[in-house]
C-alpha cells in the first residue's frame, strides 16, 4: 500500500480498501522504524492523526476534497507550519513555532493532505548533502537497499557495515529520504541551486523545480529571494503533476507569483516524440562527470533519438561562470536575508544585555553555524560600496548572460534540454565530509543552479541503477512556464526507462510493528512490483498490445488483489 502512486492510493481510499487512519498509522510506525535515517526533525503525530480522522469522516460521507485527501505528506523544515516547530535545522530557530502556515502548506491542508511532520535539511538550506544541520546528517535509504548491498557483497565489501552509509544529497535530503523510504507519498522541498533535484537524483525520485513565479514562496523561509522555489519530491512524474496542480497559482501574499491563469496540470500520454527537439548542452560535459553518468546521459539521448525525436547539440557558453555568479548572488542575498535573525522577535536569544548590538552579535554567533556565518560575511564583503559594482552588479550582468543563453537555445527550436543532475551516484558520508560545504556545493550544483538563475522549470527523472546498485537520474529543463510540457516529456521518459523500485526488505524485516502476514504482504508487494516491471521491460510485444499506461494499472490491480487477500480488507 505504501508503495502505490497517489492516484492508486486515492482510489483505494475512495473504495474503502484502506482508511486514512490506517494509512496514517502505517506511515507513522514506518517513520519510527526508519528513525535511523534521520529524515524527520519533527513528527506531528497527534495533528496528523486528527487530520486523518477528519479525512476519514469526509470519505464516509463521500465528500472527499480531492486526490490528496487523506494522503500522508511531509514538508521540509524551512516552510512555516502553524503550531509545528520550524527550525531550518538551525539553533537560531530552535523552539520557534510559527503562527501561520506557508501558502503551499495551507494549499495541501486545504486539499485534505495529512501532514506527518517536518523533514531534515542542511542548516537554512545551505549545502548539497543534508549533512550540516544541527539535527545531524540524513542517511540515504538506498544504503540499506538490497540492490546496493548485493553489489557490495559482490565486490567483497562487508554488506552490513553501518558506518559507510551514503548521503542523500541536499539540501532537501530529509524530504527525499522520507519519500524514498515509503514513509509518505509526496514531500515538499525547496530549490535554490538544485536542492530538490540533487537529493531526488541520489534517492531515485522525481524532483520537480517549477518555474520561478508559478508557486508561492510565502512562508518559505527565504535563502535567495530571486531564485528560491518550493520543490516537489515524489516517486513518479504523475504524482508530481498532481501536487503541482494543487500548489501552482497566484498568491496575493507573494507578489512574485504570476497573475496569469495556470494549469490544469493533467499530463497527456505522449505517444509520438517525433515532433520533439531535445537539446544536449555541450558545456555540461565537464571532466568531473563520472564516466558512468556520461554513459547514462548518452544512452538517454540515444533513447530519444531512436524513438524519432530530434536530438541536437546546443551551446550555453556562459555555463562555466554560472557557479561563480551563483556564489556571489547567493551570498549577497543571504547576507540580507539572515539580517532578520536578531533574537528580538523570535528565535534564539542570548543572555547578553549590554547593548542591542552586542546582543545581536552574540545571538547570531550562537545561533548560526560556520557555513551560514561564512556566507553572511562573504555576502557582506561583496556588498561593500567599494565592491558592489565589481562583484554584485557584475554577477547580475553575468546572470543576464546566462539567462539569455537559455532563451537563445529555446528560441532556436529546442523544446527540452537533457542534462545530468549530479556528477555521480550517492557517495558515502565519510567521503563527502572530507571537503568543506562551499567546495561541495560548488561541485555538486554545477548542473542544477544555472536553471535557478534563469528561473526555468526543471525535473529530475530517475533513470537506472549504477554499477553500485544506486540510483542515477537525469535532468530535463524546459522553457519558462512550460511545466506541463516538461512533465509530459518526463512522464514519457519515465515510462521508457522503467526505473526499479527500491527493495527495502531488511527494513521491513526489522519492523516489529508489522505482523508476519503483513510483512509477507509487503515483501510480495515489492517483489511483484519489481517482477512486473521486469516483465514489462522485456515483454515488448505484450506491452505494445496493452499500451504503456494501461500496463501499469493492470499489474497494480493484480497486486492489489494479492495484497487485499493477504490482509483481509
Amino acid at each position, binding site marked *: 500500500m505504501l508503495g502505490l502512486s497517489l492516484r492508486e492510493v486515492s482510489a483505494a481510499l475512495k473504495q474503502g480498501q484502506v482508511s486514512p487512519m490506517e494509512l496514517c498509522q502505517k506511515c507513522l510506525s514506518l517513520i519510527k522504524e526508519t528513525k535511523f535515517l534521520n529524515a524527520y526533525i519533527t513528527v506531528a503525530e497527534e495533528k496528523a492523526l486528527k487530520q486523518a480522522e477528519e479525512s476519514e469522516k469526509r470519505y464516509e460521507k463521500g465528500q472527499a476534497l480531492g486526490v490528496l485527501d487523506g494522503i500522508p505528506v511531509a514538508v521540509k523544515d524551512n516552510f512555516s507550519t502553524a503550531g509545528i516547530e520550524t527550525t531550518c535545522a538551525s539553533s537560531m530557530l530552535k523552539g520557534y513555532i510559527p503562527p501561520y502556515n506557508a501558502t503551499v502548506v495551507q494549499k495541501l491542508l486545504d486539499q485534505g493532505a495529512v501532514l506527518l511532520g517536518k523533514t531534515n535539511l542542511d542548516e537554512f538550506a545551505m549545502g548539497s548533502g543534508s549533512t550540516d544541520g544541527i539535527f545531524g546528517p540524513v542517511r540515504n535509504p538506498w544504503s540499506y537497499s538490497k540492490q546496493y548491498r548485493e553489489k557490495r557483497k559482490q565486490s567483497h565489501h562487508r554488506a552490513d557495515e553501518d558506518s559507510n552509509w551514503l548521503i542523500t544529497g541536499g539540501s532537501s535530503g530529509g524530504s527525499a529520504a522520507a519519500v524514498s523510504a515509503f514513509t509518505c507519498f509526496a514531500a515538499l522541498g525547496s530549490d535554490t541551486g538544485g536542492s530538490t533535484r540533487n537529493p531526488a537524483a541520489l534517492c531515485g525520485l522525481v524532483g520537480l523545480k517549477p518555474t520561478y513565479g508559478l508557486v508561492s514562496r510565502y512562508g518559505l523561509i527565504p535563502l535567495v529571494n530571486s531564485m528560491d522555489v518550493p520543490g516537489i519530491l515524489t516517486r513518479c512524474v504523475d504524482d508530481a503533476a498532481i501536487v503541482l496542480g494543487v500548489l501552482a497559482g497566484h498568491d496575493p501574499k507573494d507578489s512574485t507569483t504570476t497573475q496569469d491563469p495556470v494549469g490544469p496540470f493533467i499530463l497527456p500520454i505522449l505517444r509520438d516524440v517525433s515532433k520533439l527537439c531535445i537539446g544536449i548542452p555541450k558545456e555540461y560535459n565537464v571532466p568531473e562527470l563520472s564516466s558512468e553518468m556520461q554513459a547514462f546521459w548518452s544512452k538517454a539521448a540515444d533513447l530519444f533519438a531512436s524513438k524519432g525525436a530530434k536530438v541536437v547539440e546546443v551551446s550555453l557558453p556562459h555555463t562555466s561562470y554560472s557557479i561563480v555568479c551563483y556564489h556571489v548572488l547567493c551570498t549577497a542575498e543571504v547576507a540580507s536575508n539572515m539580517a532578520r535573525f536578531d533574537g528580538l522577535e523570535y528565535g534564539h536569544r542570548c543572555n547578553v544585555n549590554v547593548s542591542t548590538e552586542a546582543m545581536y552579535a552574540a545571538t547570531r554567533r550562537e545561533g548560526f553555524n560556520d557555513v551560514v556565518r561564512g556566507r553572511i560575511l562573504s555576502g557582506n564583503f561583496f556588498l561593500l560600496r567599494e565592491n558592489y559594482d*565589481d562583484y554584485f552588479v557584475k554577477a547580475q550582468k553575468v546572470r543576464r548572460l546566462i539567462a539569455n543563453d537559455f532563451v537563445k537555445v529555446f528560441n532556436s527550436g529546442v523544446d527540452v534540454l537533457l542534462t545530468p543532475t549530479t556528477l555521480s551516484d550517492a557517495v558515502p558520508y565519510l567521503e563527502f565530509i572530507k571537503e568543506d560545504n562551499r567546495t561541495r556545493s560548488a561541485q555538486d550544483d*554545477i548542473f542544477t543552479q544555472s536553471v535557478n538563475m534563469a528561473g526555468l522549470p526543471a525535473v529530475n527523472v530517475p533513470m537506472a541503477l549504477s554499477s553500485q546498485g544506486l540510483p542515477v537520474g537525469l535532468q530535463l529543463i524546459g522553457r519558462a512556464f512550460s511545466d506541463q510540457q516538461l512533465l509530459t516529456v518526463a512522464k514519457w521518459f519515465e515510462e521508457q526507462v522503467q526505473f526499479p523500485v527500491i527493495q527495502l526488505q531488511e527494513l521491513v524485516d526489522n519492523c516489529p510493528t508489522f505482523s508476519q502476514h503483513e510483512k509477507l504482504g509487503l515483501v510480495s508487494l515489492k517483489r511483484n512490483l519489481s517482477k512486473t516491471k521486469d516483465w514489462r521491460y522485456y515483454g515488448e510485444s505484450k506491452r505494445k498490445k496493452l499500451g504503456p499506461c494501461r500496463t501499469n494499472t493492470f499489474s497494480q490491480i493484480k497486486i492489489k488483489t494479492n495484497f487485499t487477500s493477504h490482509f483481509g480488507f
Partner: protein
Amino acid sequence: MWRRTFRATLRAGLGPGATGAVAGAPGARVGSCRFAGSDSEKAAGPSPGGRVSAELIEHLERLALVDFRNREGVARLQAAIEFAGQLRAVDTDGVEPMESVLEDRCLYLRADEVVEGSCAEDLLQNSQQTVEEYFVAPLGNITLPKQSEQHPVLKS
C-alpha cells in the same frame, strides 16, 4: 549527427566552453584569473600578498554582526573572494544587470485595505522578552566594543 560531436567532445575531455572557472578545487582554477584592480582596492579586497586585512575583518564583523571566530573563518572568506574573482574574466560591456527573472512583468499592488491583523498576541508569543505589547531590547545607543576608532561610513 549529434552523437558524433558528443563523442568528439568526450574524447577531447574538456568542452570548449568549460575552460577556466569550472567547479572543482577552487585553488586549482584561481591561478588563471587576473586580479586587475586589486592594487587600487586596498581597503576592500585582499592585498596582492593574499591576506584579508584586519581592518576589513573588523569592518565586516561590525556590518554583519557575525564574527569570523577563528583563522578558518578568515581563510574561508579569502577563498570565497578568490573564487569570485573569476567573474572579472567575463566581458559584460553593454549588459544590463538582471535583478529578477520576472523583470518583464509588473509587480502588482494589493488594494490598501486592512483585511488581516490584530494578532499581536500570536506574534509576541515567540519572543523571549516582552513587556505588555512591547518587545524588550537592551540599550541601543552603545556601539559594539573592540571597534577601531574610525567609524565605518554607513550608507544613509
